[in-house]
């Protein structure tokens, strides 16, 4: 199968086969990262711009390492060092970047829809590294890779996503991706954090985490942003941890082979207890490792072949 997409903007626009191809490619590229010389020449002569309009440690580093392991030339721009501080619009920045003829632009932006806007303006491939509350497709792909690696499949699994669904681009992309690959997704969290109409994406929702995780194969916890207290979404960290967080006690009701995931960064003691994050069921750091492989796969599929 040939990969025909110009951009990776969200999971909705990828077919089941395309997701499968990305995951298979990631599986085979993963080995490069464990070599003594962690570099292959695949993307020699390709220019990749990392345009991070919003702060990021994990995703940005992961993309940079992925590009470098494939021998791509990388350039990094962040909002504070770009012309944005001089008042340049995103559209103008995009046109200027385009004039320098990069092969891919990887965009992280606080506003939903900006990668779509960028993709309309430039000929380069655009990869969405997270846009507002909308989508984070590479995170969803690395999550799917991690689950497939551990469970051998996605089809038929019960996956619980817990926490602030409403403000989470990770949740949105994962709901779409997991259901597309045949998994059943249940959401759990306080009602203030379950967005309207989420069931149209194919997931069910409830408010009791103990009940929700009973038959879960995977539990994915989402980061709780403390500033959400100001928008009246929850009263305190304490109460949140008690009723919606994942503790060893809560976990007692779960299946023996359950996997605990978290897109990071984690708030220890809020949505996830330290002993759970560091415990035997946790695959949180495997997710991070697979992030590099998935991003290498995407860069390879978008830029590596003849187009």
């Amino acid at each position, binding site marked *: 199968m040939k990969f025909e997409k110009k951009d990776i903007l969200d999971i*909705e626009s990828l077919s089941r086969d395309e997701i499968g191809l990305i995951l298979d490619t990631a599986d085979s590229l993963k080995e490069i990262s464990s070599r003594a010389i962690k570099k292959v020449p695949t993307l020699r002569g390709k220019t990749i711009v990392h345009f991070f309009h919003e702060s990021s440690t994990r995703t940005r580093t992961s993309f940079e390492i992925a590009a470098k392991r494939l021998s791509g030339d990388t350039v990094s721009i962040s909002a504070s060092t770009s012309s944005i501080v001089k008042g340049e*619009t995103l559209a103008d920045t995009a046109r200027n970047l385009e004039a320098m003829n990069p092969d891919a632009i990887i965009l992280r932006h606080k506003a*939903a829809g900006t990668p779509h806007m960028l993709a309309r303006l430039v000929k380069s491939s655009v990869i969405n590294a997270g846009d507002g509350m909308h*989508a984070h497709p590479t995170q969803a792909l690395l999550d799917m890779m991690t689950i497939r690696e551990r469970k051998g499949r996605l089809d038929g699994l019960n996956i619980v996503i817990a926490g602030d669904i409403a403000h989470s681009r990770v949740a949105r992309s994962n709901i779409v991706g997991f259901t597309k690959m045949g998994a059943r997704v249940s959401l759990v969290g306080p009602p203030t954090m379950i967005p*309207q109409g989420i069931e149209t994406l194919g997931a069910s929702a409830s408010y009791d985490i103990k009940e929700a995780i009973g038959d879960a194969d995977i539990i994915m916890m989402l980061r709780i942003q403390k500033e959400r207290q100001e928008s009246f979404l929850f009263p305190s960290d304490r109460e949140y941890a008690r009723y919606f967080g994942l503790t060893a006690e809560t976990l007692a009701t779960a299946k023996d082979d359950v996997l605990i995931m978290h897109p990071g960064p984690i708030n220890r003691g809020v949505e996830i207890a330290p002993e759970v994050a560091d415990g035997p069921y946790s695959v949180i750091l495997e997710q991070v490792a697979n992030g590099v492989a998935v991003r290498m796969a995407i860069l390879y599929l978008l830029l590596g072949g003849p187009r």
Partner: protein
Amino acid sequence: MKRTVIQGGHVVDPETGIDGLFDIVIEDGKILSVGDSKPGTGDWKLETIDATDKVVTPGLIDMHTHLREPGHEYKETIQTGCLAAVHGGFTTICCMPNTQPVNDNQSVTDYILKKARAAGSVRVYPIGAVSQGLKGKNLAEYGEMKAAGVVALSDDGNPVMNAQLMRRAMEYAKAFELLIISHCEDRDLTSNGVMNEGVTATRLGLAGIPNSSESVMVARDIALCELTGAPVHIAHVSTEDSVRIIRNAKERGLPVTAETAPHYFSLTEEAVLNYDTNAKVHPPLRTAKDREAIRQGLADGAIDIIASDHAPHSSVEKEVEFEAAANGLIGMETSLPLSLKLLEKGFLSLTDLVLKMSVNPARVLRLDHIGLKPGNPADLTVIDLEKRFTINADTFRSKSRNTPFNGWQVKGKAVITMVGGKVVFNDY
């Protein structure tokens, strides 16, 4: 002396009850007669306009527009706004006070009227601010603004959140017989919302604005109308619950009137898919259920008026991130063809349409000439109901291009716009 005869058109005027093939005779810019009467003979120059197979209506009135002058002339000027109006078949427009400076005092009102006279096409009636600087703190000077020429009061895009201020504004405005037009929106419920709350917002990852953001304020202002006895006009109704609350208030005999805009009966929130900033507007485009309720509200009279909420913005405000984009779309040049679609769909008759787009706004604003009565200034619109065309923003007279209707196939448009007996637009 000059007489003009508009011959053989289908004259529709709900104010006088005329609905049939008649000639309209105009002398000195005023209507002399509507009937079978011949222009007669005398010492005048006779001009004839053949309106066979056309509809002739009292001049259309758009009571909700933004002309952006003074202050934002790069988006629209009074002159270009007036051209857009006549192009869309309007002979009278009202302009909202959110200019820079705000129209909250007589000198700004004077300035707008002076510019409108210089533009010399449509009649422009300014709407003054409810509160000084649209800040929602103190009453603006209603008496002086009325003397200068405002016809109503509104803080439009800056809804009056303080219920006590709204109460006092409604009471005080009674002294000057000025109507309060309310942009009903609870800012706390809107919060950081940028589109309708619901499935589409969830999919797009955009913060939503619930229907209740509008309807709680509709309910509040109707309660204040009952308290004060002052009439209130609800601007750009967008939700099913607002329509129901307004209908109920009317059944109870309260002096409540309401308008909606063509985008609310033509589009749904799905126009925002693909993050089209031209479909970003306040209140936001809602669901198909709301759109149906708006159409029903127009049909049963809960909604009295169609007004465009013409809100010009340049690419500076629109070619940006969706959440950063300005709210609003332009409408004066698309209002009539979009409204005519409601005739095809069976929601309105031609008479209803003329009520909603001319007679009702004139009544609500208590303008001194309504309909095609002899003696009234000859403000009228000749409409070709059969003319098919494609909406093309590049042909607009407005300075701005922010429309979600570009490329729409429509049928029916104004071919002659006449103000005070003078043809100000002719696309016959």
